[in-house]
């Protein structure tokens, strides 16, 4: 059985108290719980403070372009479905520049896990307003307050045909690691949004603020995460932020549909030239 520390490559250089530490810890824990071989895990990150994570994690890693973690992760997974592929993005990365990929990945339902580290700010670029910053949020980019309705990533996910939606808090790594673990076990696209304070740039959405505004659906035995209408209602409430496993649905993953029972991944295909077979195809051009 592997331990958390087997995934710890080097100490991160995030600011002391950064929410990303909670995600890092939870993710290592989830990997250990799943007893993943580091070589079988690929972490694809976007650009932002969150994007440093795979520089610290003992696994294969790909630090992609801003907003493009999901297409890269999708290409990896489809070419080699035997790998565990996890994408990590920030709120800017996933919900602003990468939003199109986010929604199309949800409907595609490839079997990858996507962790969105939501600090409600553009941290690495020094504190601009993000799509999840609340209306009125004052920052270097909106000195007179943001005038845009903040975006609800999980509601969008629900509307996009998500098959797994969860929300964790980097202040609660235990629950978070269990959500990531569940997400990775889920067959299909699993979204785990993480409320994850940036202690430098976001003075509004602090650990305390989140603690005050969240409540845990996992504690509510009456809540059925298979009920889509209920999930929509829960997610509609902007005042009380639901945490835990919010929605889950069984539907075939993209791989199920395109590969069916095919055993060998694309990357294992023998590429040697099958001349007779190709000759026959060439006939069509006559």
């Amino acid at each position: 059985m592997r331990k958390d520390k087997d995934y710890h490559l080097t100490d991160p250089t995030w600011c002391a108290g950064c929410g990303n530490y909670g995600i890092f810890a939870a993710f290592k824990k989830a990997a250990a719980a799943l007893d993943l071989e580091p070589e079988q895990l690929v972490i694809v990150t976007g650009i932002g403070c969150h994007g440093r994570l795979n520089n610290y994690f003992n696994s294969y890693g790909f630090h992609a372009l801003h907003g493009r973690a999901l297409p890269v992760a999708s290409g990896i997974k489809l070419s080699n479905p035997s790998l565990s592929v996890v994408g990590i993005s920030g709120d800017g990365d996933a919900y602003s520049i990468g939003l199109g990929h986010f929604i199309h990945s949800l409907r595609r339902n490839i079997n990858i896990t996507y962790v969105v580290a939501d600090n409600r700010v553009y941290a690495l670029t020094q504190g601009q307003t993000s799509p999840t910053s609340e209306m009125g949020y004052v920052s270097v980019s909106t000195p007179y307050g943001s005038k845009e309705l903040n975006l609800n990533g999980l509601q969008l996910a629900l509307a996009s045909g998500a098959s797994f939606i969860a929300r964790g808090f980097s202040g609660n790594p235990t629950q978070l690691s269990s959500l990531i673990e569940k997400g990775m076990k889920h067959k299909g696209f699993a979204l785990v949004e993480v409320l994850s304070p940036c202690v430098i740039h976001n003075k509004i959405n602090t650990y305390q603020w989140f603690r005050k505004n969240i409540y845990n659906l996992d504690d509510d035995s009456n809540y059925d995460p298979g009920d889509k209408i209920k999930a929509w209602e829960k997610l509609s409430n902007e005042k009380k932020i639901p945490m835990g496993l919010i929605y889950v649905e069984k539907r075939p993953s993209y791989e199920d549909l395109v590969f069916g029972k095919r055993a060998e991944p694309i990357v294992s295909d023998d590429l040697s030239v099958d001349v007779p077979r190709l000759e026959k195809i060439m006939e069509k051009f006559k």
Partner: protein
Amino acid sequence: MQKKGKIITDISVMIAGMAGDGVLFTGNVLAKILKRQGWEISTYRDFPSNIRGEPTNYTIRASLEKIYGRGDDIDVFMAFDCDAIFKHAKSMAEGGILLCDGEDIVAPSPSKSKATTYHRFPLRKLALGSFGKEIFKNMIALGALFYILDLDFHIIEQIISEAFLKRKGKEVVRKNIQAIHLGCEQAKELISPEERHSLTRREDYNRLLLSGDEAIAFGALAAGCRFFAAYPICPATEIWQWLAVYLPRFNGLVVQTEDEIAALNMALGASYAGARAMTSTSGPGASLMMEGFSLAGMAEIPIVVAHVQRVGPSTGMPTKTEQSDLNQWIYGSHGDFPRIVLSPGTVEECFEFTIKAFNLAEKYQCPVILLTEQDYGHNFRSANKFDLSKVKIERGKLLSQEKLISINDFKRYKFTPDGVSPRALPGMKNGLHMVESNEHNERGYRNEDPENRIRMMQKRMKKLRSASKDLISPKIWGKKDGEIGIIGVGSTFGPIQEAITLLEKNGIRAKYLQMRTLWPFPSKKVEEFIETCKETFVVENNFSGQLSMLLKSQVRMSFDARNILKYSSQAFRPQEISEQIQKAL
């Protein structure tokens, strides 16, 4: 039209109408018939980027010699309406014949056209009268051409069966054949034997008739491409539409992505995971791929991008041809990184270069661009069967699991003499590393040390030098001892070759350097060529002379190229080149 004695050796047949008229189908069938009659074929489509209601035309050129592009004039013209006549009258050849379905046909004055005969040919009326459906006008037109060109009825029958039997059944085949007969008989009544252009028949030797897009797709399949992600765009979509059918049968996958950005990034993910991966696009999509292009260079991920050029800038003219995206791939995107740009000039080369592209991408772990054009991307050419026994798959420094295990201290971005580092795939033991879009150290982890930066830049760029000896050299054609040099790339291949023949008739001996790799630039070979020319002309299908500027920046000598440029949205005709050269001398 060219003749040897009484025998026609080269002929062009144009079919014109409105988009939606069935011009395309009729033309395709005629091209196939002539190919099977043993002729070399080159088709040319001039169609609007609109679905309906705008004029379109399709020219089938057939020759007993190998041809690679359109000819200079039209011998047989079949028009579904009269609008096209005045537009194309000036292109009619001496002795040409013109048929038109329109009330108001008027023969243009001889000063405007060299064609001999004009006939009104009531296609629609005949179709409606005999079959009750306008759509049969296409087969009736084909029947007329059958008479004029003296085609092989057996071949026609065969092709009509191939087109309709499986999909639509016997009855449809029968009716279509009937319409062809009707057209033939009507033509017989109208057209005197002297007006006919009877074509000989030769053995076909199972040759191919295919477009550059198809040749690239087939090449990719043969080269072991197993992952293809793309977004629809003219004139490149045919590449992946072909692969969409075949790749899944070869354990591969084709994904239609949400946009071009996703297409390239997904292909990069697939390639990183170990699949031979590719995408295809045209100008606007290529602009969206620029960021991922730079990532491929930085992260040293093999990738092949097929770019079929259309008319720019912006949305431009999506279904027309141009060569104005050379700069985009040679110089585009941010930062300095290694890239290879290949440009085939024929459908044969489309196939060959595609295979080469996959090998180069893996050997030098960098993006490889296949730059073609609408002209030979969309249009069809006859070609000998591709020699599949020559296809070799070279995966460069990709490590096997066994080899990797034996490596002590694996470094994905190891500094090596040739700049190429050993490559491990995710999932492999002992190969853990990062792929970083930021500057990184030999293990791939982010690193901002200036000394490391310098070495990493040198390592990456060194690969271009290493690749240079492995690339496709420029090729010299024409009169090797000629004093007049012509330089071109891509679709100008055909017209330049023919222009040389035309020039020779006027006593001018010219040779032609076909650029086949645009980047890294083969400076030495080009310098050698230029040195032997008294005058050098650069022929380009664009406004600004992109190739000419590139040449200038990459050769030692002060290079005073004369540009022959065309940017009307149409491909060159041979005479346009030969005449400009004659004038300039």
